[in-house]
């Protein structure tokens, strides 16, 4: 798009389509405010930008100058950031339009978008089901056709899992590929901003724009932005490993069938497929649920009602202010994780939990290095153990909810790039397959994803 009138039309079209899917509760920004802002952004956007006029919604835990940044939490209700996250600033500089803030599990803690203080988002194909989470709102807007792409964020699979459940593409880049500046922290050593797109290309070109060095984030790598690969003719020369631990005996047979079909297609594209073993996989969820809450307990300490956000108590005693603000401002899942995190960092328990989890994390990362050292370029696994589940089904069973991230948390623990691509339908519901790449080799991973996306009949029953 070059013509400014097209940017304006794009802005208005995006607003109209978001209104149409309002009942899915995916966008938290009031529609009047959104429309007004989109029009203003379209007239101010730089026509030479590579994403000129492209509407991109942003998960509610990523700071934007316009709209509130509430992280799906009451504790930041009405909070407006005085600055743009680096990823958002880069989108803006590329001419993209920030198309509202999307619903999510509070502070990214959840796998269903049911843990939002602003109500659950609905699955676009079945209102009784969840869209996954925590970046559920972003996945829904893309899956419902309102937008070509949206930003999400991941700590343990929060982009890939909803992408799988909603039938869209979800990319989590290598840790350090995209600046975290302005991403409201949950588990800082695991968090990355990711992209949900209706195609590999849409997601990849947004990722390319938001990637690259940032002097404001010490954990962001000193690298140029990601180069977009071309769609390959074949996957000749690629070695794709299939880790056996990701295909347990009790895996949903339909998920297994979908994966088998995808693997067959990868072979037909010319890739060499071989079974590999990542022996510490069984410990990944437990490891994750020590490290992420530990970091969260510290990252969320700042929400105390003293400086910003609502206060839930008028008492003069500062301890009472903390208790009520945090007690009432945080939802039950956030409180649970803050408690767990506080516990595992406490003196006397640190060695038994946090330190041990860090050691296990190193072993999990080593598993991947070993596989890659043996000539494997990429790994293929299911993204999620099941398609979208019913709302309320896992709400009172945190462990069942946590297990929906069983195939995604490892990439976060190891800091590796991973992508979920739709590979078929199960009883009408989408399911994704996952490619895990080597650190900072997103381009190879994207090449394989392009080929898989093109070959796989994503709309067909597996």
């Amino acid at each position, binding site marked *: 798009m070059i013509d400014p009138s097209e940017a304006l039309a794009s802005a208005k079209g995006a607003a109209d389509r978001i209104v149409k899917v309002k009942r899915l509760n995916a966008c938290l920004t009031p529609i009047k405010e959104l429309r007004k802002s989109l029009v203003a952004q379209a007239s101010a956007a730089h026509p030479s930008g590579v994403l000129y006029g492209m509407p991109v919604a942003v998960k509610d835990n*990523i*700071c934007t100058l316009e709209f509130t*940044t509430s*992280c799906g939490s009451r504790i*930041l209700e009405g*909070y407006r*950031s*005085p*600055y743009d*996250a680096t990823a958002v600033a880069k989108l803006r500089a590329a001419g993209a339009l920030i198309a509202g803030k999307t619903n999510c599990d509070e502070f990214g803690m959840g796998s269903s978008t049911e843990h939002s203080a602003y109500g659950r988002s609905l699955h676009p194909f079945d209102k009784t089901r969840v869209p996954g989470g925590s970046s559920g709102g972003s996945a829904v807007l893309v899956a419902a056709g309102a937008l070509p792409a949206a930003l999400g964020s991941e700590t343990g699979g929060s982009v890939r899992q909803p992408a799988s459940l909603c039938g869209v593409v979800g990319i989590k880049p290598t840790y350090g590929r995209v600046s*975290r*500046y*302005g*991403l*409201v*922290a949950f*588990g*800082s*050593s695991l968090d990355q901003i990711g992209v949900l797109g209706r195609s590999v290309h849409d997601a990849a070109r947004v990722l390319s724009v938001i990637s690259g060095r940032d*002097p*404001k*984030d*010490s*954990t962001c790598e000193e690298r140029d932005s990601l180069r977009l690969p071309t769609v390959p003719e074949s996957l000749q020369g690629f070695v794709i490993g299939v880790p056996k631990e990701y295909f347990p005996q009790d895996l949903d047979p339909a998920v297994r069938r979908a994966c088998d079909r995808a693997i067959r297609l990868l072979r037909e594209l010319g890739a060499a497929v071989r079974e590999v073993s990542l022996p510490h996989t069984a410990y990944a969820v437990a490891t994750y649920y020590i490290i992420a809450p*530990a*970091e969260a*307990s*510290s990252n*969320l*300490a*700042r929400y*105390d009602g*003293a*400086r*910003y956000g609502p206060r839930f108590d008028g008492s*003069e005693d*500062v*301890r009472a202010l*903390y208790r009520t603000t945090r007690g009432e401002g945080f939802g039950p899942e956030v409180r649970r994780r803050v408690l767990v995190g*506080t516990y595992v*960092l*406490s*003196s006397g328990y*640190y060695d038994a939990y*946090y330190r041990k989890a860090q050691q296990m994390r190193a072993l999990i990362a080593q598993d991947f290095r070993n596989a890659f050292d043996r000539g494997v370029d990429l790994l293929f696994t299911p993204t999620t153990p099941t398609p979208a589940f019913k709302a309320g089904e896992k709400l009172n069973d945190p462990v069942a909810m946590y297990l929906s991230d069983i195939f995604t948390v490892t990439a976060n623990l190891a800091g590796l790039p991973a992508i979920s691509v739709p590979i078929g339908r199960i009883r009408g519901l989408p399911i994704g397959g996952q490619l895990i790449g080597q650190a900072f080799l997103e381009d190879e991973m994207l090449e394989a994803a392009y080929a898989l996306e093109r070959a796989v009949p994503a709309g067909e029953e597996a």
Partner: protein
Amino acid sequence: MAGAWETVIGLETHVQLRTVSKMFCGCSAAFGAPPNSNVCPVCLGLPGALPVPNEQALKLAVRAALGLGCTVHPRSVFARKNYFYPDLPKGYQISQFEQPLATAGSLSYLSPDRGVATATIQRLHVEEDAGKSLHDRFPKQTAIDLNRCGVPLIEVVTGPDFRSPHEARTYLLTLKQVLEYAGISDCDMEKGSLRVDANVSVRRAGETTLGTKTEVKNINSFAYVEKALTVERDRQIAVLEGGGTVAQQTMLYDSKTNSVRPQRSKEESHDYRYFPDPDLPPLVLTEEFIAEQQTLLPELPAKKRERFVEKYALSVTDAAVLTADRAVADYYEAVVHAGAEAKTAANWVMTEVLEDAKDHADGLRVAPGALANLIGLVRGGTLSHQAAKRVFAEVAERGGEPRNVAEALGVVQVADTGVLAGWVSEVLGTHTTEVTRYKQGETRLLQFFVGQVMKASRGKADPKLAQRVLEEKLAS
């Protein structure tokens, strides 16, 4: 009372590094700005903001560690110290814990009780400061000023090495001297750029195990260090002599009443839940970086003192006075390099120069070359010592070349025997009784006559020459 007891003290000193900006953001670290004006999303701990280490602060911290003889670790780790307090906007302080920047240093100081003593520096780490809570600014409310939030600090922790409050204070002054010398900090306790907490215990003389310690906080000025520690030491001794036991707790010192009180347990943090800060990669320092900081470290006071004793043949005491302040030491050496005799120059600097500097904020007002010239004029007999002091004061006040100033003041000594003979005749003529007594053997009256000649010449006579002329005249 203290005789049967031995005091054991260790100090934890927080020192603000002299940087333009804060530890993890670009905000000004200046003291005294209007409340909450030097702040940004990073030091306010706003959602999504991230820290980036200040390289200048790291350089100064490494220099401090090297100056204190520490081993600087090529890899250290920033850690979060978690606690809730309104002036701590992130709910944690970025510090270092398991892997500090530096360990195993030492600092020797002149103990008032034991001569040269050595304090072990157990560790030195980098951290950010918290904001300030002002409880007395608004009635019944606490005001928060976050300007100080994120200002770079080092914490210097000694072993339990001090045996008296006086010793602890001497160490602290020596530490201050070293850090000021190296330009690491201005060490101003009143501005809060140097803060000290002390661990205090007592034990029966001869005991080798340590007694139960308390931590003394809120010591706000150098003047209170010794007082606060003495009060706590005496309190512990009284408790023990009364048959009680010392409770391990934090004591707050109140300078107004010169007393300590236990901190309410509510104010104490029980468990800081330290863990490596995931926002900051391990701090990796190259050998070159560390070596460069070593070269940028100036000669430190102890070394300079030794060198002054050796090179300028000064007493240890004089060398200590001259090296107490780096500017004074540099000034002294400049005077010597400009040609003044070392011992005389030392006397001038320790008396006239420091006296003048004490009364004038602009410091060392007479240029080192001018002072060397002035000392030369005394040595060459052109000026008496008394006259030279007048010239010094005049040069300090209004500037100018010492010889010109001396001439303008009319205090250049007269060494012309003819002129002197005139004053001598005048004096002997008006003091005939004393002349008779002198001739009868009261030779100590010679100094009286010299004084009279100086008086008659209004100080201009060269006293040595005057004495010689007097002796000749009186002998005839």
